C-alpha cells in the first residue's frame, strides 16, 4: 500500500508540474509550486517508510516550513516589487509578555 501511495503521489507531482509549466497566470504557477511542495512533503513521509529511513520525515518537516517562506517571498516580491517593506502591522498589544 505504501508503494501504491508513493506512486500516486509521484503521479500527482507530475500533474502539478504540468500546471506549473502551463501557467498561464503567475498565480497559477505559485499555486502549483506550493501544491508541489505539499506533495513532496507527503512523498518524503511515505518514502521514509518505503526505504525504512525515518530520517526522511525530518526533511519533510523542514520542507513544510521552508515551502511557506518561499511562497510568501515570491508573493510579496511580486506584489510590492521589494522585499524590505512590512507586509503587516505589529499587533497592537505588542510585547505583552515581557
Amino acid at each position: 500500500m505504501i508503494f501504491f501511495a508513493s506512486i500516486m503521489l509521484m503521479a500527482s507531482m507530475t500533474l502539478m508540474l504540468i500546471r506549473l509549466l502551463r501557467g498561464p497566470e503567475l498565480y497559477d504557477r505559485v499555486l502549483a509550486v506550493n501544491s508541489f511542495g505539499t506533495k513532496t512533503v507527503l512523498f518524503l513521509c511515505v518514502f521514509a517508510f518505503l526505504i525504512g529511513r525515518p530520517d526522511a520525515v525530518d526533511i519533510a518537516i523542514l520542507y513544510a516550513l521552508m515551502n511557506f517562506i518561499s511562497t510568501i517571498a515570491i508573493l510579496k516580491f511580486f506584489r510590492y516589487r521589494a522585499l524590505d517593506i512590512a507586509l503587516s502591522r505589529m499587533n497592537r498589544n505588542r510585547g505583552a509578555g515581557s
Partner: protein
Amino acid sequence: MSELLHYLEIARHILASLSLLGGGFFVVAGAIGVLRMPDFYTRVHAAGVTDTLGAVLVLFGLILLSGFTLLSAKLALVGVFLLLTSPTATHAVTNAAHIAGLKPRLGTYRTAPPPEEDNTKGPIA
C-alpha cells in the same frame, strides 16, 4: 486475549492501507482538478482537496502503520505544519491575485467559458 490483539493488529493494517489509498486518491483527484479547472480561483479549490483530506489521510495511514512511537508524533507534526501553512499560503496567493485585479469567472458554466456579461460586472457579485 492474544487473539483479540491479533485481530486488532490486522484491523490496524487494513485501516492504514485504506487510509493511504484514500489519501492517494484525494491527492490525485486534487491534482486532476488543478489541471481541469478553468481559471485560477477555481483551481485553488482543487488544490485545497490535496492539502486537507489528501494530506491528512496519507499521514494518518502512516501514523497507524508506525503505531505509538515517536515517528508518529513527528508525522503528526508534519500534518500540523501542513494544515497551518497551506491554507495560509492559499489565502495569500488568492489575496495577491485579487488585489492585483485578476478577475474571477463568475456565473454558471460547464467547463466552457462563461457568457461575456458575467465578466463585466466586476469581481464581486
